[in-house]
């Protein structure tokens, strides 16, 4: 495949509620910081692709207005996915593979704050069989966690360790929403939120935006000293019905990881889009990550969970570490749907 790299990444600080800005205003700093960091404007971009969902914006065609944030005049080559920005990046990567364009802008955003997010997400479920029961997203994750515990894949202490480590790592992430140093014991002393999940096992509700600039070959090398090359990227889905899946594993992540070539080299860092603590442990197993891998140094989705953007942010976090020389090869993961239904895996690498 053609060499494509992440050459710039920007995100807005994750916040529980961005009330004073509309989506266009909230998005603009992410888009223009990402472009500005590599001294580019929209005129330097060959293809633009975004990810968002109308259900969080509360209006149909919501992405139509947010396109204005990039200033698409004269008219641009552009597309939009009703998916996390990680999939928008996938479309842009495919587009650049065709060899006609050298640069792409990817952006994504959402405000979950105006609604009741766990209730809104019930609208993703089968509208005939499951949706009418309104099972919220946290309860579904709790079902998965209980199945995982029952299968003796791990313990509540293991989950607590993920939660504690994630918030501690987030202390080094100025964009994180939840960051603190709290022991596993303190975490376990909390009562259940929705058993077996404690509040600390669950992600925050976050408003925010993120953007990435991709560039091919020499364009990437000209723009940054150490581009984060995309060595592999793949995504797979499973049925939404929980009864049709083994919830204690992530079969789709395993396939995507194999296609993306995760095992083709050592992994220094992994950013996993695991909104719930037990999901990180399911993903580590699916990705075959060793204990020596630095997982979610940003704090991950447990520290900031911008719907439609948390997946792209994982890619950006890995890319930043490669570009900074802190890591040579990393894995970024994005998820969508209840209980890790759909998963995307990206392998990024710096020049040796």
């Amino acid at each position: 495949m053609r060499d494509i790299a992440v050459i710039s990444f920007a995100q807005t600080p994750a916040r529980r509620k961005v009330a004073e800005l509309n989506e266009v205003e909230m998005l603009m700093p992410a888009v223009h910081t990402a472009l500005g960091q590599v001294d580019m404007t929209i005129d330097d971009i060959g293809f633009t692709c975004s990810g968002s969902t109308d259900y969080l914006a509360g209006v149909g065609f919501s992405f139509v207005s947010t396109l204005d944030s990039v200033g698409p005049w004269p008219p641009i080559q552009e597309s939009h996915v009703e998916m996390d920005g990680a999939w928008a990046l996938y479309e842009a990567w495919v587009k650049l593979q065709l060899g006609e364009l050298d640069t792409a802008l990817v952006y994504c955003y959402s405000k979950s704050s105006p609604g009741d997010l766990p209730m809104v997400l019930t609208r993703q479920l089968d509208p005939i069989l499951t949706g009418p029961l309104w099972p919220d997203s946290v309860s579904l994750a709790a079902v998965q966690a209980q199945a995982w515990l029952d299968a003796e894949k791990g313990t509540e202490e293991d989950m607590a360790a993920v939660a504690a480590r994630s918030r501690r790592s987030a202390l080094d992430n100025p964009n994180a929403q939840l960051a603190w140093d709290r022991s596993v014991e303190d975490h376990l002393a909390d009562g259940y939120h929705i058993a077996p999940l404690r509040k600390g096992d669950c992600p925050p509700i976050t408003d925010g935006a993120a953007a990435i600039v991709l560039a091919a070959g020499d364009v990437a090398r000209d723009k940054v000293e150490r581009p984060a090359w995309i060595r592999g990227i793949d995504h797979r889905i499973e049925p939404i019905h929980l009864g049709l899946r083994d919830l204690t594993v992530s079969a789709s992540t395993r396939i995507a990881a194999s296609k993306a070539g995760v095992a083709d080299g050592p992994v220094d860092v992994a950013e996993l889009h695991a909104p719930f603590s037990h999901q990180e442990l399911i993903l580590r197993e699916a990705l075959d990550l060793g204990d020596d891998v630095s997982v979610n140094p940003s704090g991950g989705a447990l520290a900031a969970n911008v719907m439609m953007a948390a997946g792209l942010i994982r890619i950006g976090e890995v890319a930043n570490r490669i570009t900074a020389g802190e890591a040579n090869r990393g894995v970024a993961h994005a998820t969508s749907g209840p209980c890790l239904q759909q998963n995307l895996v990206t392998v990024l690498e710096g020049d040796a």
Partner: protein
Amino acid sequence: MGKDRVAVVGIGQTKHQATRGDVSMAGLVREAASRALADAQMTWADVDAVVIGKAPDFFEGVMMPELFLADALGATGKPLFRVHTAGSVGGSTAIVASQLIQAGIHERVLTVAFEKQSESEAMWALSLPIPFTPPLHAGAGGYFAPHIRSYIRRSGSPDHVGMLVALKDRQNGLKNPYAHLHEPDITFDSIKDSMMLWDPIRYAETCPSSDGACALVLGSEKVAEAAAAEGRQPAWIKGTAMRSEPTLSAERDTVLPLGGALCAADVYKQAGITNPRKDVDCVEMYVPFSWFEPMWLENLGFAEPGDGWKMTEEGATALDGDLPVNMSGGVLCTNPIGASGMLRFAEAAMQVRGTAGDHQVDGARTAVGHAYGGGSQFFAMWVVGADKP
């Protein structure tokens, strides 16, 4: 690196109607997808990836419905990708799917687009607030009526041209068994006498609200050649293009959008088309309100600005004209919004495959499919041909 060849090797669509109460959303997409797979002589297992498109999720009341449709679309363990680019989405979805093959990632991609508009009230769902604009319009017709009025004023077109388009498209639709509207008794006078909804758009010059789905199986060069060897003509994709404009921009001309013109120029260049009127055998374009036929004829380079209406009036765009437009009956006969763009792309492919039945244009070798969306700001086009590029 570079672009691999890709062709349409299977086409399927549902019977479109106001309410498909006999099927769920899953049943609707499976009806189209099963027909496309049967046409391609493939099964679900042959598909490498699925790309699905639809317009706003609020139309059916399911958020990101591809998640629950994954199972019905046989996507378990496969990549499933969801596109949404407003009204152009059916076209964009097919283009995104074709690029997966052009990039050499997959060999066989199933792409599906649908809308089940009976689940909600589409007219009000399309009555969106426009920033800094008084909320005076109801439905897409209310939004586009001023653009049409402006077109009539600028071009000096006589008032009856819109009605001629409506009559032609509704009569073409009678030849298409899948079309939603079958109005055998329609006449010029019945159109003229129909209610004025959004002046100058009459009821009979307006698209319906439909339930429906369309599906295409796209194949690599190897897959398409194997189909051809068995006597199943592929529709080779000779060019694809997309362009987008902002919502708020003083430079925009919504009667003759620059984005549409750039999209057409790009796709013609890829397909080696230098004189669109001469080089293209037939066109399926996105005409939700009758007057968009002459407007798009100009925007897509088939007529000079101000002259599109003359082609309609002369009968050039009739099924037996020199540039048949909307042979299937078009959006004026069938409008499941999310699928409408793909239906245009599919009809273009059917024409060059020679499988368009009673609405077949004799000897069609090169056809254009066109879709637009938003406030005339999102454009998707492809050129398909019977000959391998």
